[in-house]
């Protein structure tokens, strides 16, 4: 009888756990699958929280910090853009500020992006398009932009075609700021 009770408790526990399995796991973003999937990198090296509950706790903390740092990064990026535009129009007095500030902005942005990309998986994924899904798609654009901007900036002084290199840096920066602003705006949409 004792064993029957144990088996019953186990079945009930297993049932309650499986009820909270990740929904639509096949829709999990590729980067999350690579890191946190069943055979993901973090699972292989036994890194991260031991329970799903702690994973969710960590996820929420990481995403909240991502939100704060992303807002800060967006503000910094907007300031950097204004400095960049002044230089584009011929005022080079802000060159050293633009250079110095770029490292801080880039570091804040990358920390924020890491907090989002490395966060443990959500409890639910979906096939349909939502504001948060577009937010993630836009992140691939501004992340690529942020990776390229420092090299394109350095390339201006080294390039044989100064104007072309400057235009390229400016255009990539504009696309990056625009996609990041849209990405931020999308988070306030209800659906």
């Amino acid at each position, binding site marked *: 009888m004792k064993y029957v009770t144990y088996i019953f408790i186990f079945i009930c526990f297993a049932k309650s756990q499986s009820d909270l399995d990740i929904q639509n796991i096949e829709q999990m973003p590729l980067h999350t699958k690579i890191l946190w999937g069943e055979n993901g990198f973090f699972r292989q090296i036994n890194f991260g929280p031991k329970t799903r509950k702690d994973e969710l706790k960590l996820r*929420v903390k990481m995403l909240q910090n991502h939100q*704060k740092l992303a807002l800060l990064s967006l503000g910094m990026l907007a300031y950097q853009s204004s400095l960049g535009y002044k230089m584009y129009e011929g005022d080079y007095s802000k060159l050293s500020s633009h250079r110095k500030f770029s490292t801080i902005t880039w570091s804040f942005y990358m920390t924020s992006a890491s907090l989002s990309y490395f966060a443990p998986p*959500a*409890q639910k994924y979906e096939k349909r398009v*939502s504001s948060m899904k577009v937010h993630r798609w836009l992140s691939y654009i501004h992340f690529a932009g942020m990776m390229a901007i420092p090299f394109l900036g350095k390339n201006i002084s080294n390039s044989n075609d100064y104007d072309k290199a400057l235009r390229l840096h400016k255009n990539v920066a504009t696309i990056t700021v625009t996609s990041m602003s849209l990405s931020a705006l999308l*988070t306030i949409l*209800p659906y």
Partner: protein
Amino acid sequence: MNRLLLILLISVSFAQKIDISSSEIKYYGNHFLHSWIGISSEVKSTVIYDGLKKNGSVSIKVPLSSFDSKVSSRDSNMLFYTDAIDYPNVKFKSTEISMINDSVRIVGNLSFHGITKSVSTTASINTSNGFKVQGSFIIKLSDYNVPRPTFMFIKIDDQIRIEYTFQTN
């Protein structure tokens, strides 16, 4: 004939279980930047009605994971803040039901996040197309010790409106 009368008498005299063909529970969340609705149709309910005594009982169970707010990351957050791993369901069991004309007043215990509190609601009854019961009530997240999620440094509203619809054909 006597046998038929006896069956009819028994079916009217005793409490009957009403089969609910469709049910829906909605919760309305609010933040100063936006509002949203989470909907669940995976509601398990038992409604017993006693025609003679004009009373009955209602018990409802709905898994938190079944609520869909159209943004999966928000649903995930909700499951985290409501500790859905430890408390996967929201349950309601009536303690008192009284009919008032075309509506029904239901008092009962709502168990959510491991805390049970008494709630009362008045539902309208519509019999024009089958049998439809509709109503709403408000709960406070703080009453159930559910921490409020923060978005853009501001917490969501403490009050959540719950709307329910049960229908039989």
